[in-house]
């Protein structure tokens, strides 16, 4: 009876924030704006309930060990079913409790921090969606269910980066985050597909049970590499980590909870969850070590030359997460788990403190006679001038990784798209016309993304009246 109750209690951890998000969204539906106080109360209540559920999970694990909790199927069709299965083990319990605490703290912090902000309600709806996704992610018993949580985390992350949507930079940064997430999510989906193909299941417990009979298969390597790729995207690792400093355009509270604490560590969690799978592939482990080390070095140097506090902390975060990748590659999973929790807590605090960075620096100067920046400068002094310049430039440009990706991946796709478009346009002879109001005809000159570019001045089309 008790384990059943605790299991149900734990399973509700993602339900509370999801329910609260729906309630707040429904309050908006009639066109009225609920008060900040009401939204804060609903969100806080969901946070506490989620924490209570997480405590149930900890209690369940301590009293009964790992539990494979099956809730039935979401849907059955044509001989295929989507299982709703949760895995309540020590990792899930610890992470769930940690997430609940961090989210609750963020909610309490943000109620004051975002008071009278136009996007107050939007922020809380997205944070609740994120909390639900993150809780689902850590307790998912199958890759598909983990993917659902993963997607919720991704979408809320993108929308919070674009929180200040009236400015061009946050919006552009959100697109960058989305592109990286979407591309790397393919890894998780391919992982699920290959697992189905290879082991006939994506339920973690079944996968781990069948692994010993299927070691050394090429499908195992493909699965492991696909999952590593997915983790790299979410955890901002080389070469797909360029989005992290750009994601700092969002509100400080969301930066703290997403990129300091939880979301950025979701990739590491995936590696920990899929550890038995990754362990059986030496190649995947080597890739993990190389990616982690490269990120650690690049991000650490970039952090040293960052001009603003949030970017510096973001780079430092990526660097530490890189070390966690190395730990996972070397098989030190317990160390990686401890590192994850400790690092997430520290960065969370650091991010929340960044708005007062200048104040802190002055205080540090007054108390100690030096600041962190002075220490960084002293470290640079140890290098020869030529080396310093070269390294500084490289670090400032983040080792040109983004430019290389743009040149090798983004531009060819966009060029192909426009080439095909021109071919079709030529075929239809629809192009080359002067734009007409109401037809959506293209401008005479095709130009790159002009949105937000002040230099771009389209031809005057007048100011058409709205039709009613």
């Amino acid at each position, binding site marked *: 009876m008790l384990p059943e109750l605790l299991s149900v209690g734990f399973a509700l951890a993602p339900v509370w924030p999801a329910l609260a998000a729906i309630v707040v969204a429904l309050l908006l539906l009639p066109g009225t704006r609920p008060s900040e106080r009401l939204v804060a109360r609903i969100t806080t209540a969901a946070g506490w309930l989620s924490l209570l559920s997480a405590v149930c999970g900890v209690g369940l694990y301590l009293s009964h060990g790992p539990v494979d909790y099956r809730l039935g199927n979401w*849907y059955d069709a044509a*001989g295929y079913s989507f299982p709703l299965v949760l895995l309540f083990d020590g990792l899930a319990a610890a992470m769930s409790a940690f997430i609940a605490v961090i989210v609750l703290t963020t909610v309490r912090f943000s109620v004051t921090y975002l008071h009278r902000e136009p996007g107050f309600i939007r922020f809380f709806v997205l944070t609740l969606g994120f909390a639900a996704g993150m809780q689902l992610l850590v307790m998912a018993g199958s890759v598909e269910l983990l993917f659902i949580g993963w997607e919720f985390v991704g979408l809320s992350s993108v929308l919070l980066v674009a929180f200040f949507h009236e400015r061009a930079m946050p919006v552009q940064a959100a697109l960058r985050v989305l592109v990286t997430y979407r591309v790397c999510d393919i890894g998780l989906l391919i992982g699920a597909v290959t697992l189905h193909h290879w082991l006939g299941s994506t339920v973690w417990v079944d996968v781990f049970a069948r692994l010993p009979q299927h070691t050394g298969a090429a499908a195992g390597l493909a699965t492991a590499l696909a999952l590593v790729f997915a983790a790299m995207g979410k955890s901002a690792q080389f070469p797909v980590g360029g989005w992290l400093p750009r994601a700092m355009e969002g509100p400080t509270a969301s930066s703290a909870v997403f990129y300091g604490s939880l979301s950025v560590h979701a990739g590491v969690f995936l590696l920990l969850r899929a550890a038995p799978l990754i362990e059986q592939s030496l190649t995947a482990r080597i890739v993990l070590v190389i990616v982690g080390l490269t990120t650690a070095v690049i991000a650490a140097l970039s952090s040293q030359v960052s001009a603003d506090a949030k970017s510096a902390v973001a780079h430092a975060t990526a660097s530490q997460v890189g070390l966690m990748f190395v730990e996972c590659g070397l098989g030190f999973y317990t160390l990686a788990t401890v590192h994850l929790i400790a690092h997430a807590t520290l960065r969370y605090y650091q991010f929340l403190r960044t708005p007062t960075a200048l104040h802190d620096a002055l205080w540090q100067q007054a108390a100690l006679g030096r600041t962190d920046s002075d220490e960084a400068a002293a470290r640079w002094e140890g290098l020869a001038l030529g080396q310093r310049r070269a390294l500084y430039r490289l670090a400032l440009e983040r080792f040109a990784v983004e430019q290389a990706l743009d040149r090798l991946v983004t531009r060819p796709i966009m060029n192909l798209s426009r080439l095909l478009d021109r071919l079709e346009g030529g075929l239809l002879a629809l192009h080359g016309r002067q734009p007409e109001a109401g037809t*959506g005809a293209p401008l005479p000159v095709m130009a790159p993304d002009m949105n937000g570019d002040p230099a771009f001045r389209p031809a005057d089309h007048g100011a058409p009246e709205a039709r009613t």
Partner: protein
Amino acid sequence: MTHDLVALAIPLLWLFPLLAAFVVQFLIREPTRQRDVAIGVAWVVFAVAMGAFLLNGWDSHFDRDDLESGLFMSLRFHMAVDGLNALLLPMTAAIALASLLSTPRSDLRGNTAARILAVEGTLLGCFLALDAATLSLFWVGSMLPLWQDTRRSKSRPLHLVMTLAIAATTAALVAALVIMAGAGAAGSASPFDLLALTQATTSLPPIVGWLFLFVALLRMGIFPMHLWLTAAGWRAPGYSAMPALFTSLGSFGLTRVVMPLFPRLCEQVSTPLVVLGAVTALYGAVLAVGQYDLRRVISYFWVSQMGLVLTGLATLNAPGVSGGLLQAMSSVVEVCGLMLIALEVEARAGTTDMRLLGGLVRRAPRLTTGFLMLSTAAVGFPGTISFVAEDLAIQGLLYDHPLAAALLLVVTAINGVALFKAFKQTFLGPGSQHAKDLRSFADLRGWEYRASVALMATLLIGGLMPQPLLAVRAGVVDALQKLEPAAAHVVAPDDDDDDDG
């Protein structure tokens, strides 16, 4: 009782809108009255379609033989509501209704309203028909109002490509019918009756199957036959084009005619069709991501989705067909919703060129939220119908076509980027000078808002609880799986359901 009600509903569903179109076009002169009559008729048809769906929606494909009836002169229309068309009826009626409700009053004059009703009537007739000749007649008829619209548009190439599409469709269907009549496969009494043909011991000449396949692929907008679809999606007068374009008539034709009548042909072309579907999906996605016009983004995205539908259906296995059918339905709702929003932006801003837009969220938060939610649903976000459909389609592809499955995952990612990019350029950011200069840009109001909410609710509720939707098509999927390639035998229809009309 149920049979009587459905028998009563069937002529009402297709004949009523057609008659109303005639009345609105020729007998009513006052624009407000034209609009009111058109909307009233659309509401009635929607209610009847919903009723037919609820009464007969769970029946299996080709299991019904009880709605054959002489209609007028010597014509015999064999029509039925079954698992394959049951969902399409209320969906088509809803799209027509949404088009009428969303069209600005200044644009909704007699011609537009009549065209929307005419398209609705012919589409419903096409979905209901269990007779190849009737189906072909309605099939061609459903494209004519759009063709007439393009004739009046200023774009000659659009009119030309539409003319070519309709001419090719008509030629292929007429040829198919002539060969069918010549072959007399099901006996001289009903050479076009689809039900009789599936039960016949002799099979039709494969050329008929090829012709129907060609028409279905053309109507789906499969590469390289997609040009008419993207051109019409971009340049055709918006609201009247919606019901004509955004219905899954192509995939319907594939499952109503080609798959049951020509199972051997389907087996032969299964792999090429999977490849063609995957190529179309990728082609549409790559083109969508580089567009500057919102309507073009949606049009290419629509092509990409049709590729995905074809890929699922072409697997011929149960999860693939189930996923393909569900995707065909969900993509109609999503793309229709997105196009509706694009048209509303066009009506307010005078353009859908995204370089002239931006920052609309400040003036139209509901419009923005609607676009965002429909976009996330369209790219298969968990909790929406598309997620379930894509999951099933990929499960269907997994064992025989793993590379196609992997390619579709890439396509989904590119589509996500394309739609979010369009969202960003249209609704977010500081906005272009043109957008800033707009004197008024109203948010969704009244029925526009309700229609958007209804579309979103359909996608969310259907996605969270997909089992009833899957159950509707379960009989169809089951029946298609039992078709034997050699002689096209299907599950014997219930004798109780048979009557002599």
